[in-house]
C-alpha cells in the first residue's frame, strides 16, 4: 500500500524538477539528471524461493532468494503488456546495495531494509527466518525499499542501483570494484571513536536528538504493542474452551441443547478470528519498524556531518599551528612553548640554510593546508546543505507515512470491533434460543 503511494507521490513531487521528461517522451531510458528511475521503470519484488547451496566456507546452507522484476514504463503506458525482466537476489545483496549507497551518499537518509531477524515477536509468531509469513513480509519490505530508493531524487540516479535491477551476474563484483568498502571501513572506524566538535551545526544536532527520540519511542511502542498482542491472543483463544464445553454440555440437555451447541460454534469462530486480526496488525508493526530503522539512518547522516565538521576543525587547527611555526621561525620569537624552542635555547639555533629549508617546507605545507581547509569547508557546507534538504524531505515523508499508518491501525481496530459485534450478536441469538 505504502509503495503505491510512494509511486504516486514521486510522480507528483517530481513534476517540477522533471521538466526534461515532462513532454512525455519516456522512450529515453538513459539516466537523465533530476528524473527518477521509478517513472521509467516499473519495479517489483514478485516472489520468494528457497535455495540450497554451498556457501563461502563450503558448508551447505538454505537461503531465500527474491525475484526482482522490472518493466519499462513507456511500454506499459502505450498499452502493451510486455513480460517483465527479472533476476534473483538474496537479502545479502540488498544489504550490499544499501551499504554502497550509504557510503556513496553520506548526506542522504537512505531507506532502510526490512529487519534481518524477526524482532518484537509476540509468542505465536515465529521468529524463524524461514517461516513463510516472515518471508512474505520481508518480500514486501524489500519491494518497499526498492521503490523508495528508485523514487528518491538523488539515489534513483545511481548506476549501481540500475545494475542491481538489471544485471544478475557480476553485479557484486562491480560494486566491490568501486572500492567503497575501504571508504566504508575507515568511516566506520572514525565514527565509532568519540570526538567533540567545537562549533556544532545547530539544526543537525537537533535532528540527531530527534532521531534518538524517534528510535526510543518507536521501539517502546513496538514492545508494548507486542505484549498487548500476546494478551489479546490469549483472551480470544480461551473462548475456544467455551466452544468445547458448550458442545459437551449440550449433549446432556434437551431444550437448551441446540442453543448451547450453536453458541459454542460461534465461540470457536471467535477464537479462530484472532489469527487474521493479529496477522494484519503485523503490517502496522512493520510500518513502525521501518521508521525505527529510518531513525538510525537519520542519526548516521548527522554523525557523518559531525565527522566532517570535526575533520575540518582538525585541519583548521593544523593550519593555524603550522602558521604559528612559520612565524616563530621567521621572527625568531617564540610565542608558545615548543620543544624546538627549548632545544634552540639550550643548544642554540640552527644554521640559516636549515632554517630556510624548513621555512620553505612549511610554506608548502601551509599552502596545502589552506587548500585542504577550503575543500573541507566546502565539503562540510555542502554536506550540511544536502543533508538538511534530504532531512526536510524525510520529515514530510515520515509525517505522511505515519499518519497513514495510524489511520490504517484505526481501520484495523474498527474491523476487529465489527467482527466482535457480529460474533457476540450471533451468540446472543443462540442463547435466546436456549
Amino acid at each position, binding site marked *: 500500500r505504502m509503495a503505491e503511494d510512494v509511486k504516486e507521490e514521486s510522480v507528483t513531487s517530481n513534476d517540477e524538477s522533471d521538466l526534461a521528461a515532462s513532454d512525455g517522451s519516456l522512450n529515453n531510458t538513459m539516466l537523465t539528471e533530476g528524473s527518477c528511475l521509478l517513472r521509467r521503470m516499473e519495479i517489483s519484488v514478485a516472489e520468494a524461493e528457497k535455495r540450497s547451496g554451498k556457501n563461502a566456507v563450503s558448508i551447505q546452507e538454505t537461503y531465500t532468494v527474491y525475484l526482482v522484476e522490472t518493466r519499462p514504463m513507456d511500454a506499459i503506458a502505450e498499452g502493451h503488456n510486455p513480460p517483465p525482466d527479472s533476476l534473483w537476489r538474496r537479502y545479502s545483496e540488498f544489504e550490499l546495495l544499501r551499504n554502497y549507497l550509504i557510503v556513496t551518499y553520506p548526506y542522504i537518509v537512505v531507506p532502510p531494509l526490512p529487519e534481518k531477524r524477526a524482532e518484537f515477536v509476540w509468542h505465536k509468531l515465529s521468529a524463524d527466518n524461514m517461516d513463510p509469513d516472515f518471508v512474505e513480509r520481508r518480500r514486501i519490505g524489500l519491494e518497499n525499499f526498492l521503490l523508495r530508493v528508485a523514487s528518491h531524487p538523488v539515489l534513483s540516479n545511481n548506476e549501481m542501483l540500475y545494475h542491481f535491477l538489471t544485471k544478475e551476474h557480476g553485479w557484486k563484483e562491480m560494486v566491490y570494484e568501486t572500492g567503497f568498502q575501504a571508504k566504508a571501513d575507515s568511516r566506520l572506524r572514525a565514527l565509532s571513536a568519540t570526538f567533540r566538535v567545537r562549533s556544532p551545526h545547530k539544526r543537525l544536532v537537533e535532528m540527531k536528538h530527534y532521531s534518538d527520540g524517534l528510535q526510543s519511542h518507536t521501539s517502546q511502542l513496538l514492545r508494548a504493542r507486542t505484549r498487548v498482542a500476546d*494478551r489479546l491472543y490469549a*483472551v480470544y483463544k480461551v473462548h475456544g474452551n467455551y466452544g468445547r*464445553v458448550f458442545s459437551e454440555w449440550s449433549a446432556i440437555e434437551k431444550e437448551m441443547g441446540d442453543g448451547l451447541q450453536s453458541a459454542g460454534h460461534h465461540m470457536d469462530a471467535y477464537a479462530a478470528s484472532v489469527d487474521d486480526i493479529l496477522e494484519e496488525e503485523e503490517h502496522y508493526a512493520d510500518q513502525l519498524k521501518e521508521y525505527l530503522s529510518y531513525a538510525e539512518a537519520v542519526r548516521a547522516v548527522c554523525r557523518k556531518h559531525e565527522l566532517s565538521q570535526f575533520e575540518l576543525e582538525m585541519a583548521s587547527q593544523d593550519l593555524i599551528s603550522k602558521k604559528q611555526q612559520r612565524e616563530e621561525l621567521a621572527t625568531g620569537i617564540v610565542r608558545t612553548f615548543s620543544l624546538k624552542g627549548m632545544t634552540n635555547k639550550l643548544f642554540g639555533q640552527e644554521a640559516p640554510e636549515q632554517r630556510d629549508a624548513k621555512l620553505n617546507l612549511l610554506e608548502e605545507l601551509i599552502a596545502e593546508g589552506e587548500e585542504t581547509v577550503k575543500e573541507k569547508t566546502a565539503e562540510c557546507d555542502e554536506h550540511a546543505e544536502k543533508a538538511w534538504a534530504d532531512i526536510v524531505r524525510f520529515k514530510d515523508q515520515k509525517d505522511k507515512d*505515519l*499518519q497513514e499508518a495510524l489511520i490504517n491501525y484505526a481501520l484495523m*481496530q474498527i474491523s476487529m470491533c465489527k467482527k466482535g459485534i457480529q460474533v457476540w450478536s450471533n451468540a446472543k441469538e443462540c442463547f435466546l434460543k436456549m
Partner: protein
Amino acid sequence: MPNSPDSMVNQFRLDEENEEEQQGAINKDIFVTVDNPESHISAIETFITYRVVTRTTCSEFDSSEYEVRRRYQDFLWLKSRLEENYPTLIIHPLPEKFVMKSMVERFNDDFIETRRKALHRFLNRIADHPILSCSHHFKVFLTEETTQELAPHRKLGPGFLSRMSETMRAMANSVRGLRSKLEEFAVMQAYVDDFSNKMCSVDKVTNRIIKEHREYMDELKQYGPTYFQWAESEELLAEPLKGVGSCVERCSKETEEQIQHLSEVLVPTLHEYVLCADTLKAVMRRRDNIQAEFEAKNEALASRTTDKEMLDFSNLCSAYGAQAVATATGGLNDKERESKKELKFENVVDQLQEEVDDLADRVEQANNALRGDWSRWRTSMRADLKSAFISTAAKNVDYYEKCLAVWESFLLSQRGESMEQRNGADAS
C-alpha cells in the same frame, strides 16, 4: 440491585405474560429483600448482619410487614432445618462460608456485596417455592424480632446429629447397594453427575477468561502512554498520535467495565449452579437413603416372615410330636412356650409390617417431592443460565460497539484534518 419488596410486588403484577413466573408465583405472596449490611463488633467476635425485609399478604403471617436483622449463621440454620424437613426438595444454595482461594478478606466490600446478593436470591427462591415457602422455620426466620428468639433454635445446631446418621446410613447403603433404583432416578443421577462436571468446567473457563481480560487490560494501560510520550517530540504527528493514545485509553476503560460485568453477572450465577450440582447430589443421596432404609426393613420383614412360616411349619410337624411328648412327660409348658414364641413372632412381624408400610409411604413421598421439584428446578436453572449468558453476550456486543465508536470518531477527526491540509496546500 434488589428491588424493595414493594417494587417487586409491582414488577410481579406487570409481568403476567411470563408463564414461568406465573407457574411458580401463582401463590407468590411473600416478597423478601436482603440489604443494608452492617458490621457488629463485640468483645468476642466481629460479624456482619443483613437487614431482611418481608412484605406479605399470606394469611399465615400475623402482620404484613417485617424487618429483622440476620447474620450468615442464621441463614445456615434455616437451610439445615429445611433440608431436614424436606430432604428431597431442591433448595437453592447459600453462598459459601469463606472462599479461601480468592484471598478475599471477610469484610471486603465486594465480598459482602456478592454475598448479600446471593443471600437475597436464596431467600427469594424459598419464597417462590410452593412448599418451602410454607415452612415454619422460614416464617420464624423472617419474623422473629430478636435474634435471641432464634438462639434456642440455633442451639440445636445445624442438624449435626442428623447429618451424622445420614452419613452412616449412606455408608451402609453404599456397601449393600440399592436393590432396584427406578429408571428415572438412575437417569437423574447420571444427569446430575454430568451437569456437575459441566458447571465446573464452564465456571473454570469463565474465571480463566476474566484473568486473561485483566492481563490484557493491564498491558493496554502500558501501551496507551507510549503514544503520548512519542507525541511530545512530534509536530504534525502529535495530534494523530495523541488521538490513537486516547482511543487505546478509552478501550481499556471499556475492558474494565466488561470484566466487572462478567464478575457481577455471569460468575455468581455459574458459581451458584456449581453449588446447586452439589445440592442435587445430596438430594439424590438422601432419596437413595430413604429407599435403602425401606429396603432394609423390607428385607428384615421378609426374613422374619420366612422364619415365621418355617416355624409354623415346624410347629405343625412337631405338633404331633410335641403332643406325643407332652402327653408322655405331662408338660403343658412346651406348648405354652411354643404359642408364646409364635405370639412374639407374630407381634414382631406385625410391627415390622407397620414400619415397612410407613417407610414405603416415605419413599413414595420423597420420590414425588423430588419429581415435582426436579422440573421446577430445571425450569429455573434454564432461565437463570440463559439470562446470564444473554446478558454477557449483550455486554460484549456493547463493549465492541463502544470501542468501534471511539475508533470511528478518531478516523473522522483525521480525515477531516487531511481534508483541511489538502485544501490549505491547494490554496497556497
